[in-house]
């Protein structure tokens, strides 16, 4: 049950075909204002799986709406919100949601693996940030040194 219950992050990285997404969109639009939760979710999930950033954002938006509208679906939704935000690169948001879910379901495999992924990304970016900062310092240092030398030479 639990293994089938939620998709892994990997699933979110495999985009759907444009035609498939179009089917979901058509279904979503055809139901109008009284759209059912499943239809809305299907479209939102399809959007999150997409590679386009705008689609992903829209997907997260719909998920937020589902979260607000259907309290009985909130527990699931938190995971998708975490996943969506992870894909968007909003790691702090992703972590906020995911930690909430882990709080409720410490044994949730999907949430745990997502946690790892988020940590990894944050670490990588953090490393790069340090690298950049140090690189920039180095360059400025070199330039300053060069300037300094030049100035000295002029003198």
């Amino acid at each position, binding site marked *: 049950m639990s293994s*089938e*219950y*939620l*998709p892994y*992050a*990997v699933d979110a*990285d*495999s*985009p759907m075909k444009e035609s*498939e997404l179009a*089917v979901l969109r058509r279904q979503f639009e055809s139901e109008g204002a*009284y759209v*059912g*939760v*499943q239809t809305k*979710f*299907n479209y939102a*999930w399809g959007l999150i799986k997409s*590679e*386009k*950033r705008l689609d992903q*954002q829209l997907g*997260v*938006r719909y998920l*937020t709406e589902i*979260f*607000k509208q259907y*309290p*009985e*679906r*909130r*527990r*699931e*939704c*938190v995971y*998708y*919100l975490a996943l969506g935000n992870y894909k968007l*690169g*909003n*790691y*702090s948001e992703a972590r*906020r*949601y995911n930690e*909430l879910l882990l709080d*409720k379901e410490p044994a949730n495999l999907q949430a745990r*693996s997502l946690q*790892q*992924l988020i*940590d*990894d*990304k*944050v*670490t*990588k*970016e*953090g*490393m*790069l*940030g340090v690298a*950049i900062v140090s690189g920039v310092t180095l360059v400025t240092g070199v330039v300053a040194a060069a300037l300094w030398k030049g100035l000295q030479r002029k003198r």
Partner: protein
Amino acid sequence: MGTNSRDLQAFRQTVTATAGSLISPFADGNLPSSYHNAMTDITRELRKPTLQQKLFTFNSKTPSELVRSKLSTQEIRYRAVTFLPDEVLHDIPDAENTYSLFQGFQASLPEPETKKKGKKGPKAITDSNGSSSEVDEPETMTGLESDRAKLTHRLEMLGIRKNMASSEIRDIDMKIANLNAMRNIVLNRLASLEEEESQTEHEIVEVDNKIEDLRYDMAEGLVPGNMTDTGSDGSTPSGDNTFMSDSIYKKLPSPKSRKHRPYKRISMPILHEHFEPGTNIKELQTHNDSITALDFDVPFGTLVTAAFDDTVRVWDLNNGRCLGLLEGHNASVRCLQVEDNFVATGSMDATVRIWDLSRAEHYRAGESEENANDHVNLSDCGVHTLEAHVAEITALHFQGDTLISGSADKTLRQWDLQAGRCVQTLDVLWAAAQNSMVPSSDTSRWGASTGRGGDSKADFIGAVQCFDAALACGTADGMVRLWDLRSGQVHRSLVGHTGPVTCLQFDDVHLVTGSLDRSIRIWDLRTGSIFDVYGYENPVTAMQFDARRIVSAAGQNVVKIYDKTDGRHWDCGAGVNEGKGAVVEKVRIQDGYLVEGRKDGVVGVWAC
């Protein structure tokens, strides 16, 4: 190619971002697919020393995130829209769902293999059945097993789909309940609006009348002193009230007959159209005796009832109050019709009286006062008294200035309402003799009809209706005769009913008749043939139809309704669901607004 586009994509996404995101796509750019990307993420994760991780996890935001969230307006807007405050976020109820959203998602994806499976299924079964191929057994086993797994999966998916459908239905039910609740709220609002509307209209009429009176007085020069007073004092025109307070002034019985504007509703009430069919709108105890006739002008308008207690009462259907009595007949009224302000009543005293309700001084204006109206005599409404018949009036109908009355003296009379004179007399017996080939059988026919009924109740002329020069009358011999008023001749007789005709109505296509023979017949006016027939358990005493329904009273405590549009028969009235109520005698309908009068003098108003 796929990787290239993905790289470009990723590149475009992170132009605004820091070098961190710029470099990452190149780092795993050589990997073939996104799927592998994620997989490597996981495997790398496992190899990574935890110290390195811990070093940076205290950062709440990565550099790229920081830059994005602070710089791009689109990102900021997105964040505002998707932000969930903590109190909402932590409010997660423990709800049991029969399926997860993801399972629902999977189940709603189309299955490309379904057809293949469908083909395989029967084949596999034949394989298992065909025991001839013993050699292929091991291969078939594995095949069957994979088939079984697939089928199990499919069964699971089917279960999920089933759950989805059922929960969707529950969802819709909830929405319907919500919508119904909303509808009720709006319906109540509509009801109060209509009430207010009618009150306002009455006020307008009152004010109009006052204006008219004042103008009349001024023209007559009856209040010159007041006029000069207002002129010299410069006081407001209402200053003439100092002479006499407004309320007293209003109550003054004016000796001269002032011409008040005839009251006519400006707005159309539509409330009853939104009620559930069969909803009771009102119930009035009008008389203490059996209702003999009733009619109303418009939905929520004016109702006139007559009963065996020899009184004729006028009612306001809006508030259910009695507006007064129409007094003048010496015996009980057997038939009546209301059209605008005009009422025609036919009585057992052999006279027909025409009333104009707008002539009543107290009509409408007195409404705001107490229930004292119960005994208000509206006899000053009388316009004409039509006296010529020599026996009781059993049926009448008027349209425009023409009134047709049918009497127990076996004649029909045509009246000119402008002059109040009889312009033509039609002898039904004579016409019957003219049309009949064998006179002897004709007389036996009359005899048979009275014999069959065995009751003196059957009126000789049960119903009439006229339109321009066309006249239809139903008589005790079960015949319906169509007359031409210009020639005074019967031009068609409709034979079919086996008992006295008690009610009839026609429009431009059909003629509908009800009879004591317990049937309702619908005739085609062009061909004169029967279009439809249906029957009840008891004699039909009254019937009327509107655009959609044929309603009839058939000796039960409910009104029988036949819905012409969907061919449905149903009951409406106090007797529905084992309810109690007296037998319905008379029934009228207009635009789905049904009024029925019962044997105990109660009048019920229903929406249908």
